[in-house]
């Protein structure tokens, strides 16, 4: 495996429909997305939303069928993929604040941009369908139909004449409109006496009217599509202009029956904000009017499905890059706790193991030795055991009830506490205790996010120079790399340009700092302070958390750094408040936390040091 192999793109934005289809692995979310209904596809960045949406397009369907030699899914609609991006969003935000432009430009320019974008996407879809139907070759009949279609579109969309009746010419005419728009902005900006009597009509055209006309024209020419249903697939709704978000959600109930929407967005956030605005009356209801498909792990079923998907994804990756049939499990192994404990405890200590039952909790076996050793070096754990009626020098469960209610619960805490206490007496150890390893844990760490999974596995594979045919990465190597990857991810979050918010006048808080505070709180409670069974690893955003901090958490959810754990509520007037979250498992290694969900604490409790009303000044910086 060479370094260059590693650089393959795993961002659907860059990939062609053909490339997406070639490597596509269907998951349960895709099956749900295929439904003939309005759908909100919700998930953090990197969770595969764009891939799923792009896979609905006619061209992706065509290529999937070609590469897999199989029949397509029986789609009940023709999908029009409509992208947006952050560059656009920011440009429009800055434009809206610009003082040089007259009001009619400010009001209509962003709408004109959106309309132009949608029309170009619609033309691309028409082109895809025509190409597929003609098997990518042109003949007189097809050319005649295209000419007919374009003649109708030119009239319906009031495209400037003279123009050749071809899809490409219409597209060029739309780009020219954009060029004219940009020139107009420059004239307003730099020519002090520039006056414009009126804007061209197309600045005022409604995108949906034009879609309707366009699809009708298409059905008139290509009769087999006369009754076709069209799916408008808007990607990354949360970074679309606000008015577009409002309008699309409004349309869930009122749209022409020939159209359905497939919208992707962050988990909860953007939609909730828009729906909770009092001036906006949204009647659409989940299940009645639209379905919600979530792409991140929030329950056991999701985790199982993710593990199975992850397995397929990595197997496919390994097949592409290894000459032999090396499998992911061969390289990373299992994540059984005993793999790590066997490195910690000599055979002498676990000598009675063979004479006893297979349970690692049994006297003399791994967990028994772990609890015993921890009680020896950790006074508070010793007291805990005594308080629970367990002999610290002979800590094994006397009943199934004790096993379930105490021993199983404290095991992950004990493993982490022991590793860090043992490594350096004080917890500030530089030595990595090897706690993060094994294929199942790698899946868990990635929280259902394929981009994380590919990124992490790439980093792990790059970390070793071992011969590919024998490649097996030790638990110590895996743990070091995972820890490093986790820290870099936190750095990345902190350096994200939107990560700084002014929470009090001239007091800024960075998302990375906020996440560090949360993680360090959990870590301190679990590893440094007195041993308790009910430790925390989740938090609830309570009423005492300032709005700007809630905004930062919202960004964290969007970036996948914070996981929304109560996704039953998609639409809520409270936004993120009163909802439960945890840090992404990918951040847990940075704070030496087990990959496990524990109890919840109020976020304001984490952020307030002592009895102060405000959050700690130490977290903020000033301009």
């Amino acid at each position, binding site marked *: 495996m060479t370094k260059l192999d590693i650089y393959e793109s795993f961002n659907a934005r860059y990939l062609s429909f053909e490339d997406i289809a070639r490597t596509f692995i269907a998951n349960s979310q895709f099956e749900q997305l295929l439904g003939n209904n309005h759908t909100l596809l919700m998930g953090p960045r990197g969770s595969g939303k764009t891939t799923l949406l792009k896979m609905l397009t006619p061209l992706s369907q065509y290529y999937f069928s070609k590469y897999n030699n199989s029949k397509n899914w029986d789609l009940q609609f023709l999908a029009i993929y409509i992208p947006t991006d952050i560059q656009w969003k920011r440009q429009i935000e800055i434009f809206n604040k610009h003082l040089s432009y007259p009001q009619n430009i400010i009001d209509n320019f962003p709408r004109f941009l959106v309309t132009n974008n949608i029309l170009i996407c619609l033309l691309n879809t028409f082109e895809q369908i025509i190409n597929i139907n003609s098997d990518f070759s042109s003949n007189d009949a097809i050319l005649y139909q295209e000419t007919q279609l374009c003649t109708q579109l030119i009239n319906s969309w009031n495209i400037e004449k003279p123009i050749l009746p071809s899809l490409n010419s219409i597209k060029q005419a739309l780009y020219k409109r954009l060029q004219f728009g940009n020139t107009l902005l420059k004239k307003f900006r730099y020519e002090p006496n520039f006056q414009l009597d009126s804007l061209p009509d197309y600045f005022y055209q409604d995108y949906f009217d034009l879609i309707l006309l366009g699809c009708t024209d298409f059905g008139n020419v290509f009769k087999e599509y006369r009754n076709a249903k069209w799916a408008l697939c808007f990607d990354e709704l949360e970074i679309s202009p606000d008015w577009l978000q409002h309008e699309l959600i409004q349309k869930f109930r009122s749209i022409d029956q020939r159209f359905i929407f497939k919208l992707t967005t962050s988990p909860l956030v953007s939609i909730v904000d828009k729906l909770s605005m009092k001036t906006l009356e949204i009647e659409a209801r989940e299940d009645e009017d639209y379905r919600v498909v979530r792409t991140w792990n929030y329950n056991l079923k999701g985790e199982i499905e993710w593990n199975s998907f992850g397995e397929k994804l990595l197997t496919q990756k390994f097949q592409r890059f290894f000459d032999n049939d090396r499998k992911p499990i061969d390289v990373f192994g299992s994540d059984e706790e005993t793999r790590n404990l066997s490195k910690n405890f000599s055979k002498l200590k676990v000598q009675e193991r063979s004479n006893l039952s297979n349970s690692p909790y049994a006297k003399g076996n791994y967990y028994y030795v772990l609890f015993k050793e921890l009680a020896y070096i950790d006074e508070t754990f010793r007291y805990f055991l005594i308080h629970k009626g367990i002999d610290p020098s002979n800590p094994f469960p006397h009943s199934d009830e004790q096993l379930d209610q105490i021993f199983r619960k404290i095991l992950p805490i004990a493993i982490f506490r022991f590793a860090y206490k043992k490594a350096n007496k004080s917890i500030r150890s530089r030595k990595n205790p090897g706690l993060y390893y094994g294929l199942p844990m790698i899946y868990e760490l990635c929280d259902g996010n394929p981009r994380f999974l590919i990124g992490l596995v790439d980093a792990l594979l790059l970390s070793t120079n071992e011969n590919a045919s024998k490649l097996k990465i030790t638990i110590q190597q895996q743990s070091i790399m995972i820890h490093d990857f986790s820290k870099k991810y936190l750095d990345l979050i902190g*350096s994200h340009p939107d990560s700084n918010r002014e929470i009090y006048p001239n007091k800024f808080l960075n998302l990375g700092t906020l996440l560090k505070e949360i993680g360090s709180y959990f870590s301190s409670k679990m590893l440094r302070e007195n041993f308790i069974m009910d430790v925390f690893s989740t938090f609830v955003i309570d009423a005492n958390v300032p709005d700007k901090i809630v905004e930062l958490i919202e960004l964290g959810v969007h970036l996948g750094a914070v996981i929304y754990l109560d996704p039953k509520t998609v639409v809520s007037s409270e936004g993120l408040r009163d909802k439960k979250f945890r840090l992404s498992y990918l951040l847990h290694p940075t704070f030496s936390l087990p990959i496990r969900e524990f109890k919840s604490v109020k976020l304001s409790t984490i952020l307030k040091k002592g009895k102060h009303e405000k959050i700690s000044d130490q977290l903020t910086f000033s301009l």
Partner: protein
Amino acid sequence: MKEIKTKGISPSELPQIDLVIVSSGYEKRSTFIAIKLRGCLNDSTIKLCCGFNSNKDNIQRKRNDKLFEKLGFEYIEGSGDDDHFMEALLNRVIEKSFSQFQSINVLIDYSSMTRLWYASLLRCLYYSNYNLAINIYFAYSFAKYHPPAKNIVQNIHVNPIDGYSQFSIPDKPTALIIGMGYEAERAYGLTEYFDAETFLFYNDNSKEEEFVKDVERLNNDLIKIIPPERIYKYPISDLEYLERILYDLCKSLLDKYRVVIAPCGPKPFTLISLLISLRLNNVDVWRISPGDTRNQITRTPNGEILIYQVRI
């Protein structure tokens, strides 16, 4: 679209200057060019010194202000984050002092200016219809090596720069060209923000080996994940070469991508990015700035001056 001609020249090739605009910052090098090139300035030269309206108590800043006063500069104060401050100033001066001229030579010392200030000057000179030919000489004073600051500065302003950005349709992915500097993590977050295919530019070590080592060390995480063919090293003293490779790259990318340049490193790179944006029209330059959280480093001049002639 106006034609732009550029050329690197040596200080000895500078003609007599009609208008000079400098900035009084927190660096020792702020005054270097004004002193060194004073032979090109005469009594009729309009001399303007722009000072930041923040941190005015900085000792070096006070020294610089005094020296500029001694050299006969008129002092004007403005915010380093104000995009229109320079534009308004330039319009005022040209209208007042040069409306009868057919051509003028303008020297802009951008060594201590914020990116917004010299972007604003160039934009104004490019787009405004002054009815006179303008020869612009962008002068930059190299600084002696200074180790990078230990604290991490945040990207507070991430915006398209006015005049160097225009609307496009998101029908193509974004190619992000980052001009890297030696402030830890500033470039790293941009790749995630833009969700773009990334290209990196930084100095080769023909000039300052220590600086290059710092850039590579502090951006190691980013450099590791970018394919080598997307990493470009350029000689900072040869802006014509830099302009050529950056122009060629942008031009080749425009077929498949929407191109954004994010200059985080040395100021000459930003200047070249701005020029390319004006030449190619649909290449955006974004301001990636820590604003007032920027580190105030007392950069000392190393004695070398880089001059780039721009004719519009």
